[in-house]
């Protein structure tokens, strides 16, 4: 009976220490995931930004967000129009050509804007970190709209 009690205590100690240790080790990271601007906190830690650098980049990100949303809206509209025309037309009509052109223009504007933002952000970082940042964003600039997992897999190679 005594041995059984000791065994139970030992198992509880093991399980308890696991749970406590795991939670405390993952709590900071989980907090970043749940907080609203967690991705900016990620940027700060990943690229070792100073407080001043971080504040400036945060401002740039805040200013860029409405432009980003507007472009997102424009791309969604042009793509929507293109999709509708592709469904309704039977051949390449002037309307379809115009829709393709509009979609391409919207995407080009998006790419130019993203490139400008990437360069501006990298300029705020130290040279070494700035180069790393541009290298990280390069696949997304070249193959824009790349799915996140594919992007991370590419940069990992």
């Amino acid at each position, binding site marked *: 009976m005594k041995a059984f009690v000791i065994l139970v205590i030992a198992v509880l100690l093991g399980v308890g*220490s696991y749970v*406590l240790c795991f939670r405390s080790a993952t709590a900071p990271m989980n907090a970043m995931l749940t907080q609203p601007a967690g991705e900016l906190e990620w940027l700060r830690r990943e690229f070792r930004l100073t407080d001043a650098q971080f504040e400036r980049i945060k401002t740039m990100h805040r200013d860029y967000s409405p432009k980003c949303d507007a472009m997102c809206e424009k*791309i969604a509209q042009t793509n929507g129009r293109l999709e509708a025309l592709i469904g309704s037309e039977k051949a390449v009509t002037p309307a379809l050509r115009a829709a393709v052109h509009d979609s391409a223009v919207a995407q080009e504007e998006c790419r130019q*804007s993203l490139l400008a933002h990437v360069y501006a952000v990298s300029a705020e970082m130290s040279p070494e970190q700035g180069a790393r940042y541009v290298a990280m964003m390069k696949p997304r600039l070249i193959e824009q709209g790349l799915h996140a997992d594919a992007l991370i897999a590419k940069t990992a190679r």
Partner: protein
Amino acid sequence: MSTDFNDDELSQKLRAWRVEPQIPTGFQRDVWQRIAVRQTARAEAFWPSLTQWFSLRLARPQYAVALCAVMLMSGIGLARVQAQQANAQTWRMLESRYTTSVDPLAMTR
């Protein structure tokens, strides 16, 4: 009581004495059955003896403390390894969230 034996007569009687044992039916089967039972008993005795050994050891403080220490260290060690993996996955998710937040085309997908 007379203990004079005629040696020749005794020898003759001994020579004439024959023993014819009667082997019961199923004798072989019984022997094998007993062997099987004892073998099973020997195998089953492992766990009771292990439990008894464990109980005796754990009753002593140094073994109880050692077991608790091992469980504690194992829990902490396993937690650290798994936390590392979980944190790495969270880091990748945050990276993905950032890159998506600045790429309008990714947002439309």
